[in-house]
């Protein structure tokens, strides 16, 4: 079922930067303080950040919420272009204009199903938040990175009953190969176990995960990315093609998502 974002909770305002530190060669962790309680944010939801005032870059950048504390929330971001480069320069005490929380987050897994989180690269960000929320439960968290140096060193976040495994494309750490290989190995070893999949990462990885989940008949939620102008359902710029059985030709990543049931998306068109 595709829902609409709850825009009652959406707020636009200045958020003070509490910290902005580098965690590996191209990834930073940003702490943002807001006047209103951050606790209304749900895993899978995102915010639109204006990286600086002025006209270039013009549009805000979407980022998942990676963690929520009492008075602030965290964003884990990768430096990939102009906007994220500017973000790395921001100092504690300065402000970002932040719009959010936005979108539909993950639907929490049923009690009898073991959550399996599959993250590719910076796609692990919203999954950290989800894992934290499921701290009481056993879960599997699989993360794929290109190389050992890309691993996000958050070992201190690991909870005793959460099993983490890592893959690298070049084999420099963990399993050599893709994170979807880890997933397939796991599924083959654990046939018949009731599972619930949660995935975020590059589109080819999501596609493979979604197709695997559909083949194995496992419920699967994926968090998608798309270029965005508004972030709350106005510009209609973030369209993704829907699977044929859906009632509309396109879903909007910002409002109907970013989290979708795997079977709602037309993976061939993506």
């Amino acid at each position: 079922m595709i829902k609409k974002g709850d825009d009652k909770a959406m707020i636009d305002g200045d958020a003070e930067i509490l910290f902005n530190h580098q965690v590996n060669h191209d990834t930073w962790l940003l702490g943002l303080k807001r006047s209103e309680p951050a606790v209304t944010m749900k895993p899978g939801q995102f915010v639109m950040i204006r990286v600086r005032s002025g006209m270039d870059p013009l549009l805000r950048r979407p980022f998942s919420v990676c963690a929520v504390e009492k008075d602030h929330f965290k964003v884990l971001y990768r430096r990939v272009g102009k906007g994220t480069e500017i973000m790395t320069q921001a100092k504690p005490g300065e402000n970002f204009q932040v719009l959010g929380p936005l979108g539909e987050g993950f639907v929490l897994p049923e009690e009898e199903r073991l959550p399996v989180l599959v993250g590719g690269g910076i796609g692990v960000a919203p999954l950290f938040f989800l894992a934290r929320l499921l701290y009481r439960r056993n879960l599997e968290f699989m993360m794929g990175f290109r190389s050992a140096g890309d691993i996000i060193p958050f070992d201190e976040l690991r909870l005793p009953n959460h099993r983490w495994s890592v893959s690298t494309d070049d084999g420099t750490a963990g399993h050599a190969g893709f994170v979807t290989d880890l997933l397939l190995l796991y599924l083959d070893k654990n046939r018949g176990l009731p599972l619930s999949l949660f995935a975020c990462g590059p589109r080819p990885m999501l596609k493979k995960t979604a197709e695997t989940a559909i083949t194995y008949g496992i419920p699967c939620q994926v968090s998608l990315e798309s270029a965005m102008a508004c972030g709350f359902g106005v510009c209609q710029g973030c369209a993704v093609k829907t699977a044929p059985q859906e009632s509309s030709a396109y879903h909007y990543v910002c409002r109907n998502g970013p989290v979708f049931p795997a079977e709602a998306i037309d993976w061939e068109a993506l």
Partner: protein
Amino acid sequence: MFFPTPDLTTLLGPLELKNPVITASGTFGYGLEYEPLVNLKALGAIVVKGLSLKPISGNPPPRIVETACGMLNAIGLANIGLEAFLKDKLPRLREIDTRVIANIYGHHIEEYGELAKALKGVEGVHALEVNVSCPNVERGGMAFGIDPVIAARVTETVVRNTDKPVIVKLSPNVTDITLVAKAVEGAGADIISLINTITGMAVDIESRTPKLGNIFGGLSGPAIKPVALRMVYQVARAVKIPLIGMGGIMDYRDALEFLIVGAQAVEIGTANFVKPGASQSVVEGLSKYCVDHGVKRIGEIVGSLK
């Protein structure tokens, strides 16, 4: 200290607004989406997303790409269709104390007439804004607004079928915009708004493919402001009917430039994405400017270019 409140009331021919600040079509949804972020009552008017007779699902993605100080969009005029607008959106919009302008577009001239007819007498819709920048199916997809003769026929068709003020929104993708402006004035338009987006494209150098699914898109944002301003200046000298200027307005200073060259009102577009409160800030900024400069009525600024 005593601060007189300046009079921002704006008269656009038959259409009266409480102030000259309007939100542009396609950048403000159906208005209601902005309720948590903007005091809608503070606005002169809201122009809703371009409406067609039937719902339209739009172009294949990617639909937007950021460019220097602007963005390209190829949304494909996706909208819920007139019927759903009347049923699901308008009743709530009616409760808001502002003017609502329906932006309409057709795939052929008759569709414009049908839309105008369907909106005739509809309470809560205070004017029609006619988008002539969309592809004319009968002319191989060439935009209606490129040809003065066809733009005039669209205008005439709408005027004949409506009881509401008619705004014709011009395309900037022409050699001489004054020719189209005069043609639609002659065909009975009450007001002209300009400019719509400027056609452009962007290329991904790694894949060597267009960055937009539709190849071409419409450029908007600060990058187009100088072009928009020049066109408003030209049209203000070519026609007698009131003008609504737009293109890259980010704050009240930009808005003032449009008023000074001869627009009676302005529309705020892309800025609504960057700063959701932009439209309301422009109203506040204009008011403050008037106070600071001893301007009693906003109309004193219109066309005041020296």
